[in-house]
């Protein structure tokens, strides 16, 4: 069974001017149960709108979305009983202390007092919050507030979790801990839909990734599937003994890279094509200009993402 099903979903925001903003433009996908599904896209791609629809905060203009078989527009309460959500913006009860934040979140999700108190200890330990337990949240740092926000969802056993850029603002250690916990929860059968701009996070965590831009699906599949999209795509990093002058840059531009970034003595280029012929041309350049460092590597998710988004524009 699919945990999440989305069919031809559209969302149009009407603004005060006559312009209508098409945040989602016919997106369709399915997320199987127990899967970690990553949603990638630049700012304004429609990721958060999609999360808002799936979590019943807003309704779609057309199309259909369901969580565990329940239609989000027709049965919003039933959907809300199955989900836990970390929204993009910080969402904490600033006037209350950390303990009240965690307990009230659990109570509002129907957890009994005794059970909530039992869960509290484990969550507090896992998220290193025991020293801040009695502190008012408005006095905490942004990173700690974010930690409280993410910790809240682990007070629950909701089968579907939505994480909208959940690790933003967290230190690397806590980010890793959250990622480990997400993996553990997925192994237990919980489904996770996450949006992120940290591509390495998606690369390490997600079973399936969908890239969207301007409300449209650009590509989706496993990381291997997406890598296939970038076959014959590779990144070249060069360092020169002298600076990168205009002549050198134009010689490199003549090689027709997809992307070229020159800074100081280094040049970073993204190519699509046959590696061998390109390396021959670079060897020719190296005969007249001394290259101190030369690195070639296959395209990662970042390159795939950038190319797809650039191509879509």
């Amino acid at each position, binding site marked *: 069974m699919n945990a999440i099903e989305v069919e031809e979903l559209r969302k149009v925001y009407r603004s005060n001017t006559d312009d209508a903003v098409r945040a989602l433009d016919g997106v369709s996908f399915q997320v199987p149960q127990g899967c970690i599904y990553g949603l990638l896209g630049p700012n304004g791609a429609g990721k958060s709108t999609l999360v808002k629809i799936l979590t019943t905060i807003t309704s779609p203009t057309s199309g259909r979305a369901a969580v565990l078989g329940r239609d989000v527009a027709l049965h919003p309460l039933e959907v809300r009983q199955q*989900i836990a959500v970390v929204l993009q913006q910080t*969402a904490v009860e600033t006037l209350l202390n950390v303990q009240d934040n965690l307990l009230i979140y659990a109570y509002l999700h129907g957890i009994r007092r005794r059970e909530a108190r039992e869960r509290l200890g484990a969550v507090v330990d896992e998220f290193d919050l025991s020293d801040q337990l009695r502190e*008012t949240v408005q006095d905490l740092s942004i990173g700690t507030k974010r930690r409280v926000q993410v910790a809240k969802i682990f007070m629950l056993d909701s089968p579907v979790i939505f994480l909208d850029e959940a690790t933003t603002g967290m230190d690397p250690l806590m980010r890793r801990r959250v990622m480990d916990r997400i993996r553990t929860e997925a192994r237990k059968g919980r489904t996770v839909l996450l949006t992120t701009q940290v591509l390495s996070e998606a690369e390490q965590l997600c079973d399936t990734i969908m890239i969207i831009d301007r409300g449209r699906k650009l590509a989706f599949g496993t990381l291997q599937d997406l890598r296939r999209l970038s076959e014959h795509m590779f990144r070249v990093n060069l360092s020169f003994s002298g600076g990168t002058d205009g002549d050198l840059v134009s010689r490199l531009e003549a090689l027709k890279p997809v992307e070229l970034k020159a800074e100081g003595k280094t040049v970073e280029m993204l190519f699509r094509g046959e590696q061998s012929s390109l390396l021959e041309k670079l060897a020719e350049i190296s005969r007249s200009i001394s290259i101190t460092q030369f690195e070639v590597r296959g395209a990662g998710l970042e390159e795939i993402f950038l190319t797809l988004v650039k191509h879509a524009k």
Partner: protein
Amino acid sequence: MSGIAAVVYRDYRQRITNIGFLFWDLFTPIAYLTLFGTGFERLLTGSFIVDGQVPAYTSFLLPGVIAMTIFGVAMNTSWGFFMDKDSGIFYELLTYPITRRQFLIGKICFNVLLSAVGSLLAIALGVFAMKVQIRWDLLPLTAAAIIVTTAGWFFLLSIFAIRLRRMDSFNTFTSAAYIILMFISTMFYPIAEMPVWFRVTAWFNPMTWQVDLFRFSLLGIGTPSTILLEGAAFVLFTMVCLAFAVRALDRAA
């Protein structure tokens, strides 16, 4: 814990973090009754007739002060939506497994308690310090009126608190509404001697219905048929406002 009980508990925990809220909610109306009431008692007592009775001004003002207490509680509670928006929790609350209606009703429950305490303080001051004669037999009607009118004003103000993006716009709106609702009503003076336009406007003002309800349940002033009509109108007003507040929450994003 049920959804409504959890919302009540949340509001309680939030409210006790700031004693200033309680001061505003509970003691400002009492100050009104003591200062404004005492001053005008000297000037106006015996100078006006309401439904064939010549009440002392503090007696006449007491129901208005209770209406003021309730409006103040509703205003502060609805203002809380801006705190929720500021802290970002507002949108997260919309993903919790409770209906929009349950959420709004939960918010009312704790605040009905505050309204009741504020009203009791005002009544106690009136009875013990100002010798106001209360119709104790109609106390259940007073209690029912406190519940319904707290809900009605809160639902009305919530519509604006949810829909308006800026807190200063909301403050401007509530301040203007408060003045118009209070002064074009029967809160401070009987309207029988007022110009026609004033009387017509006052008759369509829910604050008039509320003050008349309390004046009847506390002092026995007013005709039952008119009070019944005004009570029914306020219940209808409350239900319509609840429907619009639920709609505002549905469209909040």
